[in-house]
């Protein structure tokens, strides 16, 4: 029996001729299960390119509904599907792109008490969310499940992405906590508060899809990539695991972030940079 159908050979030919890829790589993708948490600005491009590439099973986790204000950047949804659950809308779109992919939509929010249940059995976790609490929760979950985490973020005209955790060249990579033991920066700003350029979420999402595929193919690396429109691109090598981080302890760390979620800024709809600072005060510390 053929490992791939004729349609799959035709469909994936242009990528299978890549040196890192070939038939073995395509089969690794086909057998892989990934979870994409968040089918928004980052999740849409991630889902498009993972589905296009032929990742076998994709869990899409999002409790939110498509809103017209999403569509400038959440390009997998359509005006017709405003009001529908984003995970379901995204699943429809990627099935239309590639019927060989099994899309499993999970219209739920990820919390402390369901993260392991929703995410066990996956090979890679992809964080396309927009709140620091969820980011730490997903990192802790990936540590506990002992899988790599592809994590990206975008706000205003800036973006960054990297692979955290997992093993590269026999060495444990830094987890998200190793790199970012506390929250500063955009201070918990979310795209619904501060806004974002669509092409920025697009670039970061495509970068994340690339990292996820490299990771599945066994060609992962250790850069964090950063962009800001109008400035040079920049990449830096991330350190390896920090011995003092909870991820390096003998035991998997307790997940202990979700309790901060009451501090987020859901009430604020639009803010000026001045107001942003005021908001930052209330949400900066999620984990000290």
């Amino acid at each position: 029996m053929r490992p791939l159908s004729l349609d799959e050979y035709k469909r994936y030919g242009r990528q299978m001729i890549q040196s890192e890829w070939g038939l073995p790589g395509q089969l690794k993708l086909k057998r892989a299960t990934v979870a994409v948490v968040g089918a928004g600005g980052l999740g849409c491009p991630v889902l498009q390119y993972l589905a296009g590439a032929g990742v076998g099973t994709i869990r899409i986790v999002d409790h939110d509904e498509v809103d017209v204000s999403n569509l400038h950047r959440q390009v997998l949804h359509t005006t017709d599907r405003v009001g529908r659950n984003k995970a379901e809308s995204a699943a429809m779109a990627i099935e239309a792109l590639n019927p060989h992919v099994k899309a499993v939509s999970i219209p739920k929010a990820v919390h402390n008490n369901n993260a392991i249940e929703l995410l066990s059995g996956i090979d890679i976790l992809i964080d396309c969310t927009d709140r620091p609490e969820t980011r730490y929760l997903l990192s802790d979950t990936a540590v506990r499940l002992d899988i790599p985490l592809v994590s990206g973020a975008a706000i205003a005209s800036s973006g960054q992405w990297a692979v955290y955790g997992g093993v590269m060249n026999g060495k444990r990579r830094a987890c998200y906590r190793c790199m970012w033991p506390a929250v500063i920066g955009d201070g918990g700003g979310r795209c619904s508060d501060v806004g974002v350029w669509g092409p920025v979420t697009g670039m970061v999402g495509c970068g994340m899809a690339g990292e996820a595929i490299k990771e599945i193919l066994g060609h992962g690396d250790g850069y964090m990539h950063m962009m800001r429109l109008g400035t040079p691109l920049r990449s830096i090598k991330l350190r390896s695991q920090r011995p003092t981080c909870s991820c390096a302890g003998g035991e998997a760390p307790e997940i202990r972030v979700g309790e901060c979620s009451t501090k987020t800024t859901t009430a604020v709809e639009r803010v000026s940079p001045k107001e942003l600072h005021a908001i930052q005060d209330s949400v900066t510390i999620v984990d000290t």
Partner: protein
Amino acid sequence: SVKGKERGEIEIKIEFGGGLHLLFSQQARHVVHVPAHVPDSSPSKPVDMRYLVKYLKSDLLSERIEMFGEGDGVRPGILVLINDADWELEGELDYELKDGDEVVFISTLHGG
């Protein structure tokens, strides 16, 4: 600083990423001139990251020092690169600055 580099000064390029530029007059790139040696140090000591961080807090920071500084250093969660290398490998606050060094401060973003 826009003035020219004076005798006994060195020039350091500074960049703030991940939203930190909001604390520094909303400007991501700065060029600063600092003395090559710590003023009034005896014996004379080359200027180091400890001095630079102090200088940034007193002379460049436009808002809310607690978002950037903690003790002599910077807050946990700020990644510092000296000439593209993680400053943990370079001695952190004890790194002795050279003319033309580039120092980058980055924090993480969360939006999506």
